[in-house]
């Protein structure tokens, strides 16, 4: 076990160490057993651990976000902005008082890269990208290999989302619930416990991917370092897809919790210029809960809205971003929007808690991280970062706790704890000022 852990750590360190690290990709094979399955371990009750990200843009109002008291259980109460989570207080942890350690080089953009990847935003050619992978992809690399989908990215108003595998490499989010439904439960879905229909094309698709991987490898030898790194990642994606296709003809074990949800509507027209965020989000939340109950994926990212979004929320007189800067006084409208965002996070938590799994619920086997890219939107502050964690990752995380960091600890510490809780035995998380090698003990069980 130790040997394996050490090796895994060192390779992941290499993977996360920056874009110039050229890893010998086939070496990753050693982490798979003979069936080609990954080494992610189920929790003690036999259910796999899952990770979810829930992100909204433009931050919070810290004065109304931070719960007044801190501690465990009855010692703390939800704040104004966290009130929509009342039903789930015993299933969440709230972390306040932490700060991002990275430089705030661009309003919103730096915070997004900082909170999601633990690294400074990468500026290039007047544009920007992430310098390293976002947390969902770091985790998907480890626990995403056994399922039909390595990870699922979606969001009611997501744009492309913020799921990155490193610079200039983005997993685009699905923005229509119907499209996500078709992807998960349409052609190619086998109900766990049933024997998949023999599909002669699966073998052919794998042959194609094998040939494509060989082409990529051969091209890699003829290009410069930077392009070789690009091809490495492409190669790894092809290889992973090939491995996942290999598993589609195995009969998946029966899962009591699995059922196919209702087919969502195809179109969601704006109403008076306001998108139907809550409705779309609700559908997404239920879809992904059943995708996980049916073990089609173990990692998801729900990008409700993006940083700097000027989406018109219900009841708001103008765009969200503009309000954060220009609404005077105590910012009642911004507050109302933040509460809507937390309500939609609560919908995600609720959808997971609705699914019975063993003696508990799906939520018990999840760690869902709720966050935004700044704290106070008005000043783009990276101090006092908002962070909610729902679920205990099979007992690895404490619930019903408000942890208040007094010394302004690095937010990345909480992310490292999350990674470890769901089965990624990382030595460290993040880069430069966002890099940490210790988790946040206060939220670890």
């Amino acid at each position, binding site marked *: 076990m130790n040997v394996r852990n050490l090796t895994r750590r060192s390779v992941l360190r290499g993977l996360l160490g920056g874009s110039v690290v050229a890893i010998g990709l086939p070496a990753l094979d050693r982490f798979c057993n003979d069936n080609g399955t990954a080494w992610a371990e189920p929790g003690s009750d036999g259910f796999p651990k899952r990770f979810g990200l829930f992100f909204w843009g433009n931050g919070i109002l810290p004065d109304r976000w931070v719960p007044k008291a801190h501690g465990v259980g009855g010692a703390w109460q939800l704040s104004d902005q966290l009130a929509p989570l009342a039903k789930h207080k015993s299933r969440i942890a709230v972390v306040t008082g932490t700060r991002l350690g990275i430089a705030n080089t661009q309003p919103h953009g730096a915070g997004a890269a900082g909170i999601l990847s633990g690294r400074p935003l990468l500026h290039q050619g007047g544009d920007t990208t992430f310098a390293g992978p976002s947390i969902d992809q770091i985790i998907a690399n480890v626990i995403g290999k056994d399922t039909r989908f390595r990870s699922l990215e979606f969001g009611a108003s997501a744009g492309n989302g913020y799921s990155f595998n490193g610079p200039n490499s*983005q*997993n685009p989010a699905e923005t229509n619930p119907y499209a996500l439904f078709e992807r998960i439960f349409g052609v190619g879905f086998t109900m766990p416990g049933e024997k998949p229909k023999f599909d002669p094309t699966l073998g052919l698709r794998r*042959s194609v991917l094998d040939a494509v991987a060989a082409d990529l490898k051969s091209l890699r030898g003829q290009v410069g370092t930077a392009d070789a790194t690009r091809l490495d990642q492409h190669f790894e994606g092809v290889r992973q897809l090939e491995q996942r296709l290999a598993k589609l003809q195995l009969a998946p074990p029966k899962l009591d919790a699995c059922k196919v949800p209702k087919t969502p509507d195809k179109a969601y027209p704006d109403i008076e*210029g306001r998108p139907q965020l809550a409705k779309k989000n609700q559908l997404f939340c239920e879809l992904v809960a059943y995708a996980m109950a049916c073990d089609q994926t173990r990692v998801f990212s729900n990008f409700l809205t993006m940083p700097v979004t*000027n989406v018109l929320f219900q009841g708001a007189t103008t765009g969200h971003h503009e309000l954060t800067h220009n609404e005077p006084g105590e910012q009642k409208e911004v507050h109302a929007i933040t509460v809507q965002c937390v309500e939609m996070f609560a919908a995600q938590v609720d959808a997971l808690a609705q699914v019975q799994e063993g003696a508990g619920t799906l939520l018990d086997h999840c760690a869902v991280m709720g966050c935004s890219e700044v704290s106070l939107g008005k000043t783009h502050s990276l101090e006092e970062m908002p962070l909610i964690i729902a679920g205990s990752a099979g007992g690895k995380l404490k619930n019903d706790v408000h942890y208040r960091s007094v010394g302004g600890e690095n937010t990345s510490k909480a992310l490292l704890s999350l990674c470890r809780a769901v089965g990624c035995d990382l030595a460290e998380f993040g880069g430069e000022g966002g890099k940490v090698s210790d988790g946040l003990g206060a939220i670890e069980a």
Partner: protein
Amino acid sequence: MTRAYATMVLLLTLAACDEQTPPTTTPAPAKLQPAPAAMPRLTRAQYDNTVRDVLGDDLSLPPTLEPDVAFEHLLTVGSAVAKVSPRGVELYEEAARSLAAQVAGKPERLVKLLTCKPTGPQDSACLSQFVGEVGDRLWRRALSPTEVATIAATATKAATALGTFEQAAEYALVQLLQAPGFLYRTEHGQADPAHAGCKRLTAYELASRLAYFLWAGPPDAALLATAKDGSLHDPKVRAAQVDRLLADPKLRRSVRNWAGEWLQLHDVAKLNKDPKVYKHFSSDLGPSAREETLRLVEHLAIDTDSDFRAFITTRTTFVDRRLAAIYEVPADNEKGHAAVTLPDYGERRGFLGQVSFLGHAAHPVSSSPTLRGAFVRRFLLCDFVPDPPANLNTAIPEPSPEAKTLRQRLTAHMNVPGCSSCHKTLDPIGFAFERFDGIGRYRSKDNGEPIDTTGDLDGVPFGDLDSLAVVLADSAKFRRCVTQKLYGYGVARPTVAGEKSQVDALAATFGKNGMKVNALMRDIALSDGFSRLACAGAK
């Protein structure tokens, strides 16, 4: 290459607004020092056009692929750094299967691509011929016999498993469309006989670069033939091919694609305004405004081969009924866009009078001199505009008895230390547009007060949009910016410091020859910087 960009990037980040051009470490060389080889990933537009040109123009294209990456604010330049994510791999696979099935599943499509008649599912000669011929077009070069054999082997497996020649062809396409030979435009280069110790693009690579520049799509058979026999390296043949490409209707496609990238029209298509404030807004206004701008660029660059200063100064535009209502001009067409002439006594003229600019560079419920000024600097003058400092509240003061108009409020804001250095370079340009509200409708008053639109552009005074347009269009910066945007689009990778003299020279010729975009495209396509690659020992 990466290190050079990184250094530049760092300096850009640290540059203050006082300096409108980013500082460089070393002075740019007086003579061209070509850039190294690149490996652009097909942009979304190039992917679509390649598939349609080669496999059939009636194919349904994939709904989603991995997003393009912007670099120098151009997606085609970003294609040189774009990677393929795990989700991207899945999307390419789905797309390849869907496209291949559409071709193989419809006999009239497949028959157009076959130059032999298959005798049965296992007709390996016909299969190899199909792979070779379609493969050459999709990969934009001659496939090696080994490459053909590898793809034919997969296809033969498909014929065995599924039973028909069509399915063999289908899986050949599934493989061709996922291969790096299709998804990347690899440029390895070869020794350049004219410049000892240096490289140039191979003839196939040059053919691809020309075709993606001038057609936003793959080379056709005629262009590939000049690559196959190497004659494309002959300056006369190259010029003849460039002229042929420029005369082809597919030029329109690339000019539209370029203009869309340059002017951020993908964002315009997603225009978002509060319909309670702007009753002229609907979700189809953005696409309509985007089309207006594209029509104007086509009109000037292709249909009339005009002086491109007119892009900023013309009174001609193309409106549908939605835009006509905003501009308060009659709409000629029941449906679609039609040319109209804006009144010459008005302020509205050129691109800067269009919703694509006035509505896009604004807030959902208000105008924004700052966003408009920043747009002009960034995209029309190619000035470097840093992001606002992140640790400041960027709110502008509320209206007060002393400061009623947005201009007065912003002027108060400009006195805040830390804000002023940038705002003073942006807002004075943006004030010119203040008689146009956040969606682009004309207004004579702001908050009941008369509007002051006077300002200056780098020291040259103007009175309002009408006169700013002339100052801007005549500026050397605008001329060079258009040149740079087109050059970057052409070479499909970041421009390096060693190419400054090349771009300067192209801009000078552009100016001398009456700012014809068509001629500029020709000059770029024939320039050394376009076809030469870095020399040994170059950094």
